[in-house]
C-alpha cells in the first residue's frame, strides 16, 4: 500500500479560494488531516473550490473532516465547487454532507446526589414489594400443587435435589470438616492454658451444630445453587424459553421455581446434618492429636454435653435459609432483561442478597431463642 501523508494546498485569489488536498485522507492519518484543515485559511465570503487531482485516497472519515471543518469556518456545503473527484467520491461527499447536517447534542451530564438517593430508595422499595409479590406467586403455586399433586413435577424435583444436594455433598463435607479442625485447634490452644482440655468438646460441638455448620452450608448453597438458579432462569428468559413455557399453558413458577424451592428446602437440613457430623469428626481428630483426648472420651463427653435440642435448633433454621435463598435467586432470574449483561448483574446480586438474608435470619433466630444453648 502506498503511504502518502496527507497535504493541503490553499490558494486565495480574487476569484475565490482553491483547496488542493493531496495524499491519503484516511482514518490512519486523521489527526494530520485535522491539523491541516484547522490551519487552512478559508474565508466564507468567497466561493470555495476543491481540487482532488492530487488526492490519493479518501474515505468517509476524511470526508467528514472536510465537511465539518469547512462548515465550522462558515462554508455553506452545497455551494462548494468540487473538481476532479471520482463519481464514487462525489456520492460519498454528498451523502455525508447530507447526513451530517444536524449538530450532535451535548453529552448527558451525571446525576446529582439527591435524585440519586431518591431513585435508589424507590428502587429498593419496589424490589421489596416485588419480592413479596413473588413470594405470593410461589405460595399460590405450592397451594395448587398441594391440592392437585399431579401438578408437581417430580422428575424435575429429583433432578434438582441431585444437583443441589448430592452434588454439593463433597464440598460441604470438606468445608465443615476443615472448619471443625481449625476451630478445635484454635480453641484447643486456649483451653490448654487453663488445663480444661475436655471442655473443647463442649465448645466445638455447640458452635458447630448451632452456628457454624448451618451458616457455612447456607453460604455455600447461596453461592453455588442460588447463583446457578438465577443464571439458569435468566438465560431462559433471554432466549424466551420462559415465554414459551407460558404459551404452552404451563406456569413458569410451577415448572421452574417450585421444584427448585422444594429441592433446596429438603437438601439444606440434610447437608447441614452431614456438616454437623463432619465438623465434630474434624474436632475429634484434632482433640486426639493435640490434646490427647481419646475418641472414646470425646464421644462419651459429647453425649452428655450436646443436647439434641441444640442440634435440632441448628437444623430448624436451615429450611428458612433455604427458602430465602431460593426465593431471591428465582426472583432475580425472572428479573433478568433481554441481554447477556443483566444475567451477570442479577447473579451477582443474588449472591449478595441471599448472604445478607441468611445472616439477618440467623441473627433473628439468635435473638428470638436465647434459651436454647
Amino acid at each position: 500500500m502506498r503511504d502518502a501523508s496527507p497535504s493541503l494546498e490553499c490558494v486565495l485569489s480574487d476569484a475565490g479560494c482553491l483547496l488542493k488536498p493531496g495524499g491519503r485522507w484516511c482514518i490512519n492519518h486523521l489527526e494530520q488531516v485535522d491539523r491541516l484543515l484547522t490551519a487552512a485559511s478559508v474565508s466564507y465570503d468567497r466561493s470555495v473550490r476543491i481540487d482532488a487531482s492530487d488526492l490519493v485516497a479518501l474515505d468517509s472519515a476524511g470526508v467528514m473532516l472536510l465537511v465539518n471543518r469547512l462548515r465550522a469556518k462558515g462554508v455553506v456545503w452545497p455551494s462548494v465547487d468540487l473538481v476532479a473527484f471520482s463519481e464514487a467520491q462525489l456520492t460519498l461527499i454528498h451523502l455525508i454532507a447530507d447526513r451530517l447536517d444536524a449538530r450532535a447534542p451535548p453529552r448527558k451530564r451525571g446525576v446529582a446526589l439527591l435524585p440519586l438517593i431518591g431513585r435508589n430508595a424507590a428502587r429498593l422499595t419496589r424490589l421489596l414489594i416485588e419480592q413479596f409479590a413473588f413470594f405470593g406467586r410461589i405460595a399460590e403455586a405450592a397451594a395448587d400443587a398441594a391440592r392437585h399433586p399431579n401438578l408437581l413435577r417430580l422428575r424435575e424435583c429429583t433432578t434438582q435435589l441431585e444437583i443441589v444436594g448430592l452434588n454439593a455433598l463433597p464440598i460441604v463435607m470438606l468445608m465443615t470438616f476443615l472448619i471443625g479442625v481449625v476451630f478445635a485447634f484454635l480453641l484447643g490452644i486456649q483451653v490448654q492454658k487453663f488445663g480444661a482440655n475436655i471442655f473443647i468438646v463442649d465448645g466445638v460441638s455447640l458452635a458447630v451444630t448451632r452456628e457454624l455448620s448451618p451458616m457455612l452450608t447456607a453460604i455455600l448453597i447461596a453461592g453455588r445453587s442460588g447463583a446457578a438458579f438465577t443464571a439458569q432462569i435468566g438465560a431462559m428468559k433471554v432466549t424466551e424459553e420462559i415465554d414459551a413455557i407460558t404459551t404452552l399453558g404451563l406456569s413458569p413458577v410451577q415448572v421452574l421455581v417450585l421444584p427448585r424451592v422444594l429441592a433446596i428446602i429438603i437438601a439444606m437440613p440434610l447437608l447441614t446434618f452431614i456438616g454437623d457430623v463432619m465438623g465434630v469428626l474434624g474436632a475429634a481428630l484434632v482433640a486426639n492429636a493435640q490434646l490427647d483426648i481419646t475418641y472414646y472420651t470425646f464421644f462419651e463427653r459429647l453425649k452428655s454435653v450436646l443436647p439434641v435440642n441444640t442440634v435440632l435448633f441448628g437444623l430448624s433454621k436451615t429450611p428458612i435459609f433455604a427458602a430465602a435463598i431460593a426465593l431471591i435467586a428465582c426472583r432475580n432470574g425472572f428479573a433478568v432483561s433481554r441481554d447477556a449483561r443483566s444475567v451477570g448483574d442479577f447473579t451477582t446480586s443474588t449472591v449478595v442478597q441471599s448472604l445478607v438474608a441468611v445472616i439477618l435470619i440467623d441473627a433473628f433466630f439468635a435473638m428470638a431463642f436465647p434459651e436454647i444453648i
Partner: protein
Amino acid sequence: MRDTDAGAAEPVLQVERLHTHLAGQWLHRGVDFSIGRGEVVALIGGSGTGKSVLLRECIGLNRPSEGRVRLFGDDICDLSRSHLSRVRSRYGVLFQEGALFSSLTVAENVAAPLVEHTDLPPKLRDEVVNMKIRLVGLPISAADKRPSELSGGMKKRAALARALALEPELLFLDEPTSGLDPISAREFDHLLRVLCDSLGLTALMATHDLDTLWGMVDRVIVLHGGKVIANGPVAAVAKLEHDWIRDYFSAHSGQRGREEFEDGI
C-alpha cells in the same frame, strides 16, 4: 480506503479448493470462487449447506480442513498474529444478530474498533463515531442507548456502523435482512447498496432473501452439495436448469422483486 490504483486486478477474496469436515461429514467438497474489488456478491444455499461456516472460514474464525482462503492476496491461515490483526482491520463483519456488545452503548460499540486499532484523540474519535451513526441512518439519539433498547432494524444499523468503523475495504454480512420486516429489509438493502457504492466496498453476504438478490446484488454464488453449482448474475442464475435452483427461485415470494427487475430492463 479507496485505492483505485493498487491491486485492481487482484481479487479481494479468493477461496480455493476449500474442504470442510464438520461433525463427521464433509460440509464443503471443493469450493472455489473469487470476488473482485467493488463487487457485491450474495452466497445462497439451503439451510445446512454451510453458508455461515464458509463465511466464518473467510473471516478466519474457523479453519478449513483443506484448501485456502486468500484475503487481499494473503492466505488467512498462514498469517502471523500481527499481520492477521492488520488484515482484520481491513474488513468488517456484520453478524446475523448484530452481535453488539450488550454492556456498551451504541456509540461505545462503534468506538470499540477505533479504540483498538487507531490512536485517534478522543474528541476526533467521537466525531467519527457520530458520523458513522448518522451514515447508517440512525438518529443521533440512538448513540447513548444500549442494544437491548433498540429495535431489530436499528440493531442491524448499529452493527453496520461498527463494522464500518475502520473504513474497511471488504464487508462480510451474515443474513443482513433476516428478522426484519419487508419494509425495513428493503431500506437496509438500499442503505447497503448506497454505502457499498459510495465507500467503494466489496461485500460478500450469506442471505435467504430473494428481494435482496433481485434488488442489490451484482453476482450470486449458489452453494449446494458442498460445491458451488452456479456463479453469475442473478438473472442468469435464475434461468439455470437445476432442481434446487428452480425450487429456490420459485418457492420464494420474491415475485414482486423479480417483476420490478424485469420491468426495469
